């Protein structure tokens, strides 16, 4: 660093720092500030907005509990389905000759925007079997039409006839219906990344395991999964972040009705429709706090991989 001035590095960093400040740091700080103020940000209310989220006083208008629970549901089911199905398809695709075709077919939904995908699937789920593909399929085989994306706790579906209560309260069939759409869109991503990971596993190693006496399941369980685990982690973290910041799919398909709200949709409605910037900002901060640990984990992992290279 001979002949360099102490401020030289900062000069180079300045553009990035300016951009980050304007578009990231300022909004975060301001959101934090507004989350401690009242609806039109004129009066300090302390943690009242957070209390609102915890107490859930108006569940019919904005059900904070259901939104948080739904986000957890998304996080767990969406991520595990997309990774699981993705891994299954990647493994199967690696064994067929038309691998490229199969993978492209699975990947195509990635190219469709969430909004377009949501519109398509809203049609798929329509109650009228003349329009809704899924109900058409079910009624064709003698079932009854189901209002998939409405709340199935209402006595409007054939599922209700199977028992007094269909599913425990937070787990609603409509949330699952939405998660399936998310999985449909994101599985392609998981397949592409995981099959790239699978390719990197040398076939000699699998043959060595076979000669060592491993059957196909043992090879999968004790060789493929552990060797693939960094790749699986990358895919899973990406999907977890997707699940946490999920907005458009729910917004287009149900608008958050029938208890399908997630934190992002609820915060949008609170802030911009109900115009309570206090609660809206508080929800945004909750979402931020949920994403931070995931980011930390993935950045750590990234650093670890850089070091072990």
């Amino acid at each position, binding site marked *: 660093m001979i002949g360099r001035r102490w401020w030289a590095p900062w000069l180079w960093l300045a553009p990035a720092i300016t951009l980050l400040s304007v578009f990231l740091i300022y909004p975060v700080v301001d959101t934090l500030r507004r989350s401690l103020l009242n609806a039109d940000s004129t009066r300090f209310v302390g943690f009242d907005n957070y209390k609102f989220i915890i107490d859930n006083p108006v569940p019919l208008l904005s059900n904070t509990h259901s939104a948080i629970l739904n986000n957890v549901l998304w996080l767990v089911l969406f991520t595990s389905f997309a990774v699981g199905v993705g891994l299954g398809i990647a493994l199967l695709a690696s064994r067929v000759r038309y691998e490229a075709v199969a993978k492209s077919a699975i990947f195509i939904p990635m190219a469709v925007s969430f909004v377009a995908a949501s519109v398509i699937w809203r049609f798929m789920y329509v109650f009228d079997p003349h329009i809704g593909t899924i109900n058409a399929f079910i009624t064709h085989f003698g079932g009854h039409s189901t209002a998939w994306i409405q709340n199935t706790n209402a006595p409007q579906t054939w599922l209700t006839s199977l028992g007094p209560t269909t599913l425990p309260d937070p787990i609603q069939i409509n949330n699952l219906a939405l998660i399936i759409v998310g999985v449909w869109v994101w599985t392609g991503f998981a397949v592409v990344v995981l099959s790239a990971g699978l390719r990197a596993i*040398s076939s*000699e*190693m699998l*043959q*060595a*395991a*076979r*000669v*060592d*006496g*491993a*059957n196909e399941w*043992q090879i999968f369980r*004790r*060789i493929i999964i*552990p*060797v693939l*685990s960094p790749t699986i982690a990358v895919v899973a973290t990406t999907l977890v972040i997707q699940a946490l910041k999920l907005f458009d799919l729910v917004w287009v398909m149900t608008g958050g009705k029938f208890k399908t709200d997630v934190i992002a949709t609820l915060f949008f409605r609170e802030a911009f429709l109900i115009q309570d910037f206090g609660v809206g900002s508080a929800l945004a901060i909750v979402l931020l706090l949920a994403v931070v640990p995931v980011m930390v984990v993935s950045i750590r992992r990234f650093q670890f991989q850089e070091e072990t290279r």
Partner: protein
Amino acid sequence: MASVTFDHVTKRFDETPAITDLDLEIADREFLVLVGPSGCGKSTALRMLAGLETVTRGKIYIGDRLVNDVPAKDRDLAMVFQSYALYPHMSVYDNMAFGLKLRKVKKEEIRRRVTEAARTLDIEELLKRKPRQLSGGQRQRVAVGRAIVREPRAFLFDEPLSNLDAKLRVQTRAELSKLHERIGTTFIYVTHDQTEAMTMADRIAVLRDGIIQQVGRPQELYEHPDNIFVAGFIGSPAMNFFDATVRGEPESLQLDTGPFHLPIPREKAAGLLPYRGKKVVLGVRPESIHDSDFPRSGVIPVQVQAAVDVLELMGNEVFLHLLSDGVSFLARVDSRTKAKPGRKIQVLFDLGEMHAFDADTQQAIPLDKPF
């Protein structure tokens, strides 16, 4: 421990033949080397035995057991791969123990066998490391260790030394020979390197384009190659070949190669008698061509003049690339030679060590056999 039998085995990939009618019996405790140039099918043969490739036609036996339809995991063989194929997520210990764990061997027994194998291979202090923390030579040892703890019926080696540097290769070669002596199990070893084959094998099978050319003890292959391919493949540097015509009276046969005429020694003449007037291929090993300044005793010398094209110093000896009227050949001569590139030199062909081959069939013409 078991013998291995290939009974008229053929392998085709789609319509491309990889192995044609391979018929080979490998005795229990034998060290057999399958050698041949790349693409000759030697690895395919080994992989069929391991159960990693299907057999198109014919039968493979391990001991008395027909294994054509036995999956790889049940054949009880151990294999060392060219890339070593270690499991990167497991420690060296776990790598070696993996096969035993799958076979539900008791923990103490696994510990005993792994430690013993590690001691044999001198890798005890590496047991806790991951493969990526090891050097190439250490990985190679772990791969061998993973094979020996299994105590399999036979060991299969697929070019296990080709990723090692030259010095380590020589050392490991010796160690593998020792290992074979010590554990006394059938070793089947695939390589493209004839030196490895010559130094380690009890018997060598030379393979070319999926067809066995010759099977025999290393010295047998060196001294009595069955055809031009084996003659050229075994021995380094490779044998020189000259197109020649057999001429002269029965009592004084000569080989006319164009640039020079070589009188055939009396004891070699009988075999060539039927070829009078016909074309043959003369084979002379570089070590049978001597500098006339430093003649060896006990040879049947025939003097030939040639120009030195290239001179390769080996230290203990010199390789001379010689030219004689457009015919090029290699001589392995005494290091005191006065040969200089571009100069002429007199060399002596030791025709007592000559080989001759039928120009059409490429098969060896028996010269030593008394008629």
